[in-house]
């Protein structure tokens, strides 16, 4: 409100009513700071601490500005941060977003309530409800209304206004160079290199269900790397923003399966069009290229913020339906390309034959291979790399038996091909974590994955993820220890410790200053009597306005209480407080007598 009485006073002043506002503001900024930290891969406590400190500094350390305005501006900045990071909040940070919203709501309620408390209460009027009760009641009511609005309008607005096609920002050279390999199209997947994984969000997906977001497939295995038999990409004509992808002729699911529409929002450079298998159309204004395996890429790549929508078709299969396909013949083209004997050692082939010997169908064979892998190998992203020149699958299955998804999936594909099952390796990302607030899937760099695709006649390509049945290796299990956690969050804990140390060091000095200020405030006779006069005035419904001098306040109170003696009290207070000699003992006694008569 514009009235001068609504302006705030410096927060460090004793009894300032604006102190209560600092807490929700700090929570709001801490929540946004934590979300931002999570986005860039930093520990959440660092962002939370930075946000809270910034809020407290903004509220407490700007005495020359109106606290009300400072609080509103801080909430606005927190809101901008929430907007910036809302798209990749993810299931792990959605509670933080809800926390931000709640803290913002409470802060707004408290700001308005505190501002109202600066206005004089109506004499003989009804007192305001207790602050806590009012804020709680209004918070609940407002939160319910706003939540209903968000739930009712959010998806509707997104569907009706949401743009499903946007090329994003022009990618810079640095962005292209820094993009992880999982986001860049390649003709070769080298199994002797360790992938880079981090918590950085790479894209979000608005889709009705989670799927493997496939980027590429590989069908030629040379013992240590995957390549593509036909790496050439053909530019596709587009009709407006829609480009139709021609599926593989034998991918039955791409023609008869149920369609599923997905909208991807990229958070960095990528030239791969990720999609649930098998994509049949892409909505984008960029030039799309297609490979023979049905995967697609985009010329010149997408920039940060790019949005594209893919429609995929796939057959929702069950174990029974896949077993039933065993009677159908595999097309010759598929068998020639994907079921040729793999490059591997004889003992790998023998192992595959032994594992699948008792399995009657293709599906059962794959399940048997998955079971064997789950029982005999361990997952670890820190597994040692296979030596150069050795067969990676042989080394993995018979020597190390520790690896990550690429080794596990490759082993499944190689063993499947060893027993004549058409299969290939697919790379991309797992579905990611689903945002409880928006329903979108948040996919991070660490979600990069490789899995096997098995061909079933009459169904098409079906994904199998043998890594899911592989237990963690010992070193991965120990990564959850508090030592590992502490090491991972070393920076955050360090900052927290430094803050605590600084607080401990500064506390005695701050406490001493507080005591000195308190002593100064209450040591003089005039200060004590002024405080008493203020108490009397507050009880009488005439609190002191900050701009009033003791004399002015006493005069106003004299009118209010119809007691002219109070004027003399004001004169005595001014004389005692501002004259060299101070008030005479008799004047002090007279003022004390008046005050005592007013408030025995």
């Amino acid at each position: 409100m514009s009235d001068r009485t609504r302006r705030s006073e410096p927060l460090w002043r004793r009894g300032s009513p604006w102190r209560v506002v600092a807490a929700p503001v700090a929570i709001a900024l801490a929540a946004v700071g934590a979300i931002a930290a999570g986005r860039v891969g930093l520990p959440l406590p660092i962002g939370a601490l930075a946000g809270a400190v910034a809020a407290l500094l903004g509220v407490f350390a700007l005495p020359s500005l109106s606290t009300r305005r400072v609080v509103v501006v801080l909430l606005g900045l927190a809101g901008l941060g929430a907007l910036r990071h809302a798209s990749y909040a993810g299931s792990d940070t959605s509670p933080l977003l809800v926390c931000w919203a709640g803290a913002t709501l409470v802060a707004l309620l408290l700001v308005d309530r505190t501002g109202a408390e600066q206005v004089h209460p109506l004499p003989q009027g009804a007192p305001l409800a207790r602050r806590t009760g009012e804020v709680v009641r209004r918070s609940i009511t407002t939160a319910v209304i706003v939540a209903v609005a968000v739930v009712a309008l959010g998806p509707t607005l997104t569907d009706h206004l949401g743009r499903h096609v946007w090329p994003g920002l022009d990618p810079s050279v640095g962005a292209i160079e820094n993009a992880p390999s999982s986001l860049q199209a390649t003709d070769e997947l080298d199994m002797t290199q360790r992938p880079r994984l981090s918590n950085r969000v790479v894209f979000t997906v608005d889709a009705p269900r989670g799927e493997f977001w496939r980027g590429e497939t590989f069908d030629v295995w040379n013992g240590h790397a995957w390549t593509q038999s036909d790496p050439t990409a053909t530019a596709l004509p587009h009709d407006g923003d829609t480009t139709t992808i021609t599926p593989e002729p034998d991918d039955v699911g791409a023609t008869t399966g149920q369609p599923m529409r997905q909208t991807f929002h990229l958070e960095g450079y990528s030239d791969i069009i990720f999609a649930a298998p098998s994509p049949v159309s892409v909505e984008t204004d960029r030039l799309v290229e297609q490979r023979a395996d049905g995967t697609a890429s985009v010329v010149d790549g997408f920039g940060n913020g790019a949005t594209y929508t893919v429609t995929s078709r796939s057959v929702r299969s069950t174990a029974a339906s896949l077993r039933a396909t065993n009677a159908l013949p595999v097309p010759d083209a598929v068998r020639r390309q994907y079921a040729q004997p793999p490059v591997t050692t004889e003992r790998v082939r023998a192992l595959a034959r032994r594992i699948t010997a008792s399995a009657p169908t293709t599906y059962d064979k794959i399940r048997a291979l998955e079971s064997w892998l789950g029982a005999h190998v361990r997952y670890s992203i820190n597994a040692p790399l296979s030596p150069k020149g050795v067969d990676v699958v042989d080394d993995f299955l018979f020597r190390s038996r520790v690896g990550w998804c690429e080794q596990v999936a490759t082993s499944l594909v190689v063993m499947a091909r060893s027993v004549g099952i058409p299969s290939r390796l697919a790379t991309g990302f797992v579905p990611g974590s689903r945002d409880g607030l928006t329903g979108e899937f948040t996919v991070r760099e660490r979600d990069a994955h490789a899995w096997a695709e098995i061909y079933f006649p009459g169904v098409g390509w079906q994904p199998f993820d043998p890594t899911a049945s592989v237990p963690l290796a010992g070193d991965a299990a120990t990564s959850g220890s508090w030592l590992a956690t502490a090491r991972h969050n070393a920076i955050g804990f360090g900052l927290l410790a430094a803050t605590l140390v600084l607080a401990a060091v500064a506390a005695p000095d701050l406490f001493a200053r507080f005591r000195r200020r308190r002593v100064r405030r209450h040591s003089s006779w005039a200060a004590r009597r002024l405080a008493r006069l203020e108490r009397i005035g507050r009880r009488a419904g005439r609190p002191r306005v900050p701009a009033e001098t003791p004399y002015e306040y006493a005069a106003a109170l004299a009118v209010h209480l119809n007691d002219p003696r109070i004027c003399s009290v004001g004169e005595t207070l001014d004389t005692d407080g501002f004259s060299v000699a101070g008030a005479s003992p008799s004047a002090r006694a007279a003022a004390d007598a008046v005050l005592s008569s007013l408030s025995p």
Partner: protein
Amino acid sequence: MNGPGELTLTSIVLFTLGAYGIAAGAATGEQGVVAVGVFAFALFVLGIVWPTVMLSGVEIDAWVPADGTVGQSHDVHVRLHGRVDRVELRVLDPQGQWWVTASPAHGVIPRIPTRRGVCSSLRIELRTSAPLGVFVRSRVLRVQLPTEQAVAPRPSAAPAGSDMTAHRLYERMADATISVTSTAVPGTGDSVRAVRPYVPGDPARLVHWPTSARRGTLVVREHEPPGVVGVALVVDLNSSDDVEAIASRAAGIGRATLAAGGAVWCCTSEATGPVSVRVVDMRDLGRRLARAGAGPVGAPPAGWPVVTVQA
């Protein structure tokens, strides 16, 4: 009579966040961004609708004392109807300070009139920004008073407590802008009517020494009794831009006269026509002066010393 209200900084922030969120969400299709934008926009809309709806249900009654004086505080009793957690109110005419209360409520607002006249209604402004502080909704209600209030002019400086002779009035009250002319007979109560023998207790200053010397015994003077002390105030508010000052001066003269025990006859012009009546006290005089306006002034009674106050 309603005021539109006032948007606050909070509303600007929320509207910006809401508009940006929805626009950015529309551009990118990000549901999370849209959700944050809708959250901010919902708060913005709610912050406007809530106080608007709540304040629309508030009505107010008020009553004031029948008499008031310019510059002197009096209480305005107000009663608020309708349920609102928090409402601020102030009296307009003149504009006072804000007071906060919950509604329904009964309270007292101090008011200091600044203009002379008869007040039959009062403007009271209500406002609230509860609960979010997004929008300060305000309403100005003109409340009909059950009994009208006569606001008397503030008596200007006068020789209160002095013996109230018209002559002295003339000497003390004349100034450059307002003329006070008197037809009163100067000097009463000083003439010697007779002498009588001294009795113990008579003040020595009353001894009439020439007669005492002739008679050889003390005699004292007996004075004429004072004549009629009072004035007929002719308050002429025509042809002047400073009628308030004239009314104040008339009030000051009347107050001084009444304080001295004199009588006051008030000749004014009111909406009903010329008025010439005797007033018995300051309240009566105040009511006459409150209603006084431009027009033909009532004739003063015969035999009364006339004091004409005009520009």
